[in-house]
């Protein structure tokens, strides 16, 4: 039974246990600290997005592309002041559309497709209208949602 009282063996076990506990605490605290710091580009792919734009940032007869999940959307303020939002994915070959203030239309540069401000395909090869989103301006926030 002499080995039970071996001081070197006891020291090793104490050191081993103390080191393990320290490492264990580190392993717990590091992920917790990482969790508490928000990620740089975290965004939900859910059906609603709050834009990094204020309603006043969007002037009449202009449009802005925004990120809706991983797909582009386009926010348009008509000359009459109404905010409208659509998917910015052209229904022809999925290019990203843009707003043309000179035409007051949404336009796809890839094949010269035109959409009116209701998202309806009015010229060029796009076969279908753009998907329409619902826009709500809540105070200084613009919230865009899929569906009615």
């Amino acid at each position, binding site marked *: 039974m002499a080995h*039970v009282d071996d001081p070197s063996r006891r020291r090793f076990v104490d050191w081993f246990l103390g080191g393990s506990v320290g490492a264990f605490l580190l392993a717990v605290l590091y992920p917790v600290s990482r969790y508490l710091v928000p990620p740089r580009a975290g965004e939900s792919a859910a059906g609603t997005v709050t834009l990094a734009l204020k309603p006043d940032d969007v002037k009449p007869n202009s449009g802005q592309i925004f990120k809706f999940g*991983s797909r582009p959307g386009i926010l348009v303020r008509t000359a009459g002041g109404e905010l409208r939002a659509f998917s910015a994915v052209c229904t022809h070959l999925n*290019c990203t559309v843009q707003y043309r203030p000179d035409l007051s239309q949404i336009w796809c540069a890839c094949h010269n497709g035109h959409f009116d401000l209701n998202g309806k395909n009015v010229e060029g090869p796009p*076969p*279908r209208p753009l998907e329409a989103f619902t826009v709500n301006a809540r105070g200084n926030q613009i919230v865009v949602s899929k569906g009615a």
Partner: protein
Amino acid sequence: MLILLVLAAVLALAPSPAGAQAPAADNCATCHLAIGDERLEKPAKAYVEDIHRAKGFGCVACHGGSEKDAGMEAMDPAKGYIGKPGRKQVIQVCARCHADATFMKRYNPSLRVDQATEYATSVHGRKLAAADDPKVATCVSCHPAHAIRPPSDPKSSVHPLRVAETCGACHGNAKYMEGRRLPTDQLAKWRESVHGKAMIVKGDLSAPTCNDCHGNHGAAPPGVTWVGNVCGQCHTVMADLFAKSVHAKAFVDMGSPGCATCHDNHAIRPAGDAMLGLGGDAVCATCHGEGDKGGRAALEMRGLIDGLAGRHRAAGALLDRAEHAGMEVSQARFDLNGARDALVKARAAVHAFTPAAVRAETAAGTAVADRAHARGTRALDELAFRRKGLGVSLVIILAVIAGVLLKIRQVDRRGRATEHG
């Protein structure tokens, strides 16, 4: 005699107006339906749903005669009765109203009034005027007399979904077209084409059917020099690039029909990268080879497009992997849309037939795809780091457990040794 009595009795009812008001009692129809002659009944039955009847036009609007008179007197040639109009007469009868802008404005202000003028320029109209060809289409061939509906009506013979069938009734009928120089496989080819499938399978009413390329009332084959204008109605970017390209003049000199030279006319298949280059299905190889400038340009353009397509695909696959593994890569995926846009533009730029035009698009797209790829790589590297961290944590946890067990054993043994000592 009995028939005449019935006719006289029925026609004695109030006369129908020829114009704007709906007939109170349609004398012609009443008799035609009562006579018991199927040949005479048919138009009266069909006319019930005709747009002209809905607008208040009675039989006399086209057939003439008098609606004020009863019996056979109503059908007196001296009163303008023409019976069934002859083939050339049909054009005049329809044009009497449809070429009168002032009159048509009362019913449909947006309806064109140049159908008869256009028809005179069509192959149908020219053949009818020159040789009274008994087979060429007149108004009633496409707009069946007594059952005319507006083109927006899905039951109309000229509704977009039915135009091809209407034209194909003659042009797809080899027996009917016998003796003509035209093929009769256009309808079958169109049905299999990218346009036909868009219309028939996808129900896309904006897809081109016969009249979109040939015209409707002025129907004629597009000329060699203006095929590009026809296709350019929808494919504007490609048509503009083509019109400025070396091929525009070369094709005219060769007598080749512009866009249709590479894409065919009725059997237009979906355009793909395989059409570009010199091998397999490449259409460039029809005229060009490896030894000429055009062949080398085709190969270079194909290489540029394949290069960007490959990079776009690789970046997309990498982001897929990262996303499926739970990493947040939506911004990278959003940015990668720019590479797809560039790829689509590069494919359109092929119609300039110069590698420089294609390269201008692929260069920008390649940079975007490479950036997305790098972000995907970083996301996967971070994932690997996290997995390693998890492994290390597990080892540490196991070590703690082992250490605790060893300590407990040690304390127990020391306790037992003290008791025995």
